[in-house]
């Protein structure tokens, strides 16, 4: 932990120094001290904005997770669905978020709904793709073994396929949560009535550059926080993967 913390501290110090020594006006580059001040000044407004953005993010993420699992399962069960949807899913990840967001406003009006939809759209794909890939990569020998024991399709799913796909699902989820907060703020920026996106937009329009920085830093912090939460859940859910390091031979009794 010490090296990254050192780098951040040095960078912030350098930033402060450049602003003070260079005599830059605050609306071009605020100093870290300006930014801290902006946090205290806009405190209540900021708290409400953070709460709002987080709510939209979490609703969007939850919907996307459910949708991704259902779509992945359907693609795995029905080969036609799989072959039809897979290339479209991959291609859709390249669609321009800044073009889609205004369209959603036009269709669904201002408010939370378009913001949530932006989050869903941009977190659903990485999770769906990762889960489908994980399901498809299940070792067929495991499946044959369970079948030789007389296990039926549902049992094979529960015991082999779902657990085998879980690591892929989590890598998709990790990617999705890092997108999610940015997606929510973009939605709010374009057509929200609340939230960090709007906070940043208004600050920008008022040339309150220090507040734009506050918005950026908080967005990043939330993203990192969500990432850490997912990583912790993953460690718990995939205990077998993280615990699964071979013990030293000499720790075992006998020579086996």
């Amino acid at each position: 932990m010490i090296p990254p913390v050192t780098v951040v501290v040095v960078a912030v110090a350098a930033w402060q120094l450049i602003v003070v020594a260079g005599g830059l006006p605050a609306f071009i580059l605020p100093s870290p001290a300006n930014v801290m001040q902006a946090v205290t000044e806009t405190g209540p407004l900021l708290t409400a904005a953070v709460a709002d953005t987080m709510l939209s993010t979490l609703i969007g993420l939850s919907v996307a997770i459910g949708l991704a699992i259902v779509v992945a399962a359907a693609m795995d069960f029905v080969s036609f669905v799989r072959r039809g949807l897979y290339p479209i899913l991959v291609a859709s990840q390249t669609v321009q978020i800044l073009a889609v967001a205004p369209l959603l406003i036009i269709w669904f009006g201002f408010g939370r709904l378009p913001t949530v939809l932006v989050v869903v759209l941009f977190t659903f794909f990485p999770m769906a793709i990762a889960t489908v890939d994980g399901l498809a990569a299940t070792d067929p020998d495991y499946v044959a073994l369970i079948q030789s024991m007389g296990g039926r399709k549902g049992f094979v799913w529960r015991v082999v396929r779902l657990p085998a796909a879980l690591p892929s699902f989590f890598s998709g989820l990790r990617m999705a949560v890092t997108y999610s907060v940015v997606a929510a703020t973009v939605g709010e920026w374009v057509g929200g009535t609340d939230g960090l996106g709007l906070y940043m937009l208004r600050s920008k329009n008022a040339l309150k550059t220090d507040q734009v920085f506050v918005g950026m830093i908080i967005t990043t912090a939330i993203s990192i926080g969500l990432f850490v939460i997912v990583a912790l859940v993953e460690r718990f859910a995939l205990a077998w993967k993280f615990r699964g390091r071979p013990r030293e031979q000499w720790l075992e009794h006998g020579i086996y």
Partner: protein
Amino acid sequence: MSTPLLSLREVSKSFHTRELSVKALEKISFTVNEGEFITIIGPSGSGKSTLFNILAGLLDSDEGSVDFVGGAAGECKVGYMPQRDLLLPWRRVIDNATLPLEAAGMSRKGARTQVAEHLESFGLAEFQRSYPAELSGGMRQRAALLRTVTTGRRTLLLDEPFGALDAITRRHMQDWLLTVHRELHRTILFITHDVDEAVYLADRVIVLSSRPGRVIRELTVPLPRPREQQMTAEPGFGASVATLLSDLGLSHR
């Protein structure tokens, strides 16, 4: 002791792709008696694993018949331990061992109780809560064998279970397997590439030729039971090994 349990009559199997067809097994016939330990040896490509897949009901033979005494042939007659141990990495040792019972519809709790009594004799008691990746090669094989025994079937098919183990661990595992065989009264068919192992473990060794696999010898091992590693120095053991080596084309006399 010599009640027939399983007999194969002229079992043949070919595999076809678009361009070529390969004859894997040709007119394989032999009988297995209740409680016998049979090893099957042959060069790579002699169809040993194909034979096991047929016995396990995962493949159908082209010709010939497989008869289990007391019922029709099929998947429910044998416990199959494939070449790779195939322990599910996300299940603890005990939960891997209970899989066959759970697949048959038993609750996890009931299955655990039933498996628990074997953990001690399989040397897995203290590892039951471990994940497979935490185990050494020998322990993994024990866990896979416990899972195979849990199927409750009278005949066990073991496809080269000790192939990946070091020489000393392997000898310990052989002795341990013989103990399991004696105590659990199961019939065992055991594939190996190792001539010494084939003779040491078996009541009878079945030698397959290279492709297509045919039975070229059934050798009864002239050693008493229980076996001990020192017996590998006895003349009867040496003579059997020599016979097998020449069957496998490894003698230049």
